[in-house]
């Protein structure tokens, strides 16, 4: 018998290939819509309305919103991919192909998360490419930008897996994105700086984890943030550790996938 490391390495690669093939096969549903949404946001809020708003945090308004729009696409798509892929596998029972195989639980989670990250980054890159038609910003800190976007998409892909573990119907798959993720993302400072808010709402906003991710990403691209960038990285890492532990606990116990 091969070593467990060798088996799990091949299994992980297999899962990544399967995940990427899944979302690229239906690219009209997975890749194109976020790019069209970004195009509309940048046209309406960036060009038409943004020209009347002026500067925000020392940047042109359209330059200010580009990082947030890219991050919104990354967050939504990382989450959507993981939740729909895992739930689809559960619903059609082909998750059993993985459960009967000698694949470690960590690798199962990593495979679904990698698929979410791959789609998130693919969509993020496409939205970034679309934004180049509207702005000519140069990335101030490429390494930090990449680090924040990869960590954020990892975090939301883990969230997607947890959602799928508990989901019993397709309605359950859309509840969190519609009623939790979208409000948090829109209130996470995509279109405004939290410094503009009254003190009370600025304090309330600090409890929104998405705010730290968008600001971290904005800092990487524009070089400015509403608060210390180390807070962003700390919050993202804490959430990854907490949600990752929850996901592994659920998969290990077989909650939602084994009776």
């Amino acid at each position, binding site marked *: *018998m*091969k070593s*467990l490391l*060798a*088996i*799990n*390495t*091949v*299994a992980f*690669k*297999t*899962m990544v*290939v*399967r995940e990427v*093939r899944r979302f690229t*096969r239906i690219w009209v549903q997975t890749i194109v819509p976020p790019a069209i949404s970004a195009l509309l946001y940048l046209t309406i809020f960036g060009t038409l309305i943004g020209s009347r708003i002026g500067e925000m945090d020392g940047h042109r308004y359209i330059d200010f919103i580009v990082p947030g729009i890219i991050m919104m696409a990354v967050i939504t798509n990382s989450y959507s991919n993981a939740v729909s892929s895992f739930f*689809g*596998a559960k619903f*059609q*029972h*082909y998750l*059993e*192909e*993985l*459960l*009967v*195989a*000698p*694949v*470690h639980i960590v690798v199962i989670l990593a495979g679904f998360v990698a698929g979410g990250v791959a789609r998130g980054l693919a969509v993020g890159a496409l939205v970034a490419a679309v934004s180049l038609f509207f702005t000519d910003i140069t990335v101030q800190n490429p390494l930090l930008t990449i680090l924040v976007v990869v960590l954020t998409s990892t975090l939301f892909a883990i969230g997607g897996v947890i959602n799928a573990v508990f989901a019993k119907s397709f309605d359950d798959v859309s509840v969190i994105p519609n009623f939790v993720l979208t409000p948090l993302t829109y209130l996470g400072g995509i279109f405004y700086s939290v410094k503009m808010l009254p003190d009370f709402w600025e304090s309330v906003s600090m409890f929104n984890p998405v705010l730290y991710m968008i600001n971290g990403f904005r800092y990487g691209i524009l070089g400015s943030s509403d608060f210390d960038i180390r807070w962003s990285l700390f919050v993202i890492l804490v959430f990854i550790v907490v949600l990752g532990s929850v996901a592994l606990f659920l998969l290990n116990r*077989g909650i939602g996938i*084994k*009776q």
Partner: protein
Amino acid sequence: MNALQTKALAKTYGSGLVALKGINLEVQQGDFFALLGPNGAGKSTAIGIICSLLNKTAGSIEIFGHDLDSNREFCKSQIGLVPQEINFNVFETPRNILITQAGYYGIARREASTRADEYLASLDLYEKRNQTARTLSGGMKRRLMVARALVHRPKLLILDEPTAGVDIEIRRSMWKFLSDLNAAGTTIILTTHYLEEAESLCRNVAIIDGGEIVESGAVEELLSRAMVQSFVLDLAEPVSVEIDLVGYRLISQKPRQLEIEVNTGTSMNDLFAQLAAQDINVLSMRNKANRLEEFFLRLVDENKKSNTA
């Protein structure tokens, strides 16, 4: 060595349903073993636990001498499962389904591709290898699940009703395929509702009912313990008078057909002599049901009666 051994395996679902009441099973390496039982008896639950798809409540499982709980990866690598329900991604092609499954067992893509083509060919699916799996017929989907279960070359193959809903021609070809596989050394555990399938393929059998093993042993041994057999006799001419038989039980009489129950060990010569004496010519004779089926039905019926008593 035992390919599979369960000790006091029990399962109670969250709803309170007791599916397994501590079953003990032993399947020898190289055996072709039937696990029979009526619907809801606990067959699929037992298979689900053995294949790590369900959590057990109590008991232990050994696969080729290795404890499933402490050496789960090894045990999983030895087992191939053909489940009752279609459970592959129907939007994938058969070839990709097999390559992906092989990957989960650590088989690199090049080797997995070779094996996928090999098993698709041996199960008559090669021509369909690049079609979307949802376009396959029911029989093809069943064969694809067999191919998928074999792609990592398991030493123990577990089939949960593999021929359900499959036409007789495909069922026969599947029997041949499984017999050859067993002859080549693969241990096979089969659950089925077609008892002639179990009788013709399997050497050993366990009958499970109400979450308990109610009978187990060699198929031939169990059949020898079947107390009665029913025969259907087709007659040359219609008979309108009531037939009188001594030592045999006439179950039903139609103008050109008789159904007669015969105790095991009773000679048939006397039956034919009695019929000839009443000017009745028998054209042909056949078992009403196969012998294992009769034994199974009697056992399940007895078990039901003892449970209600």
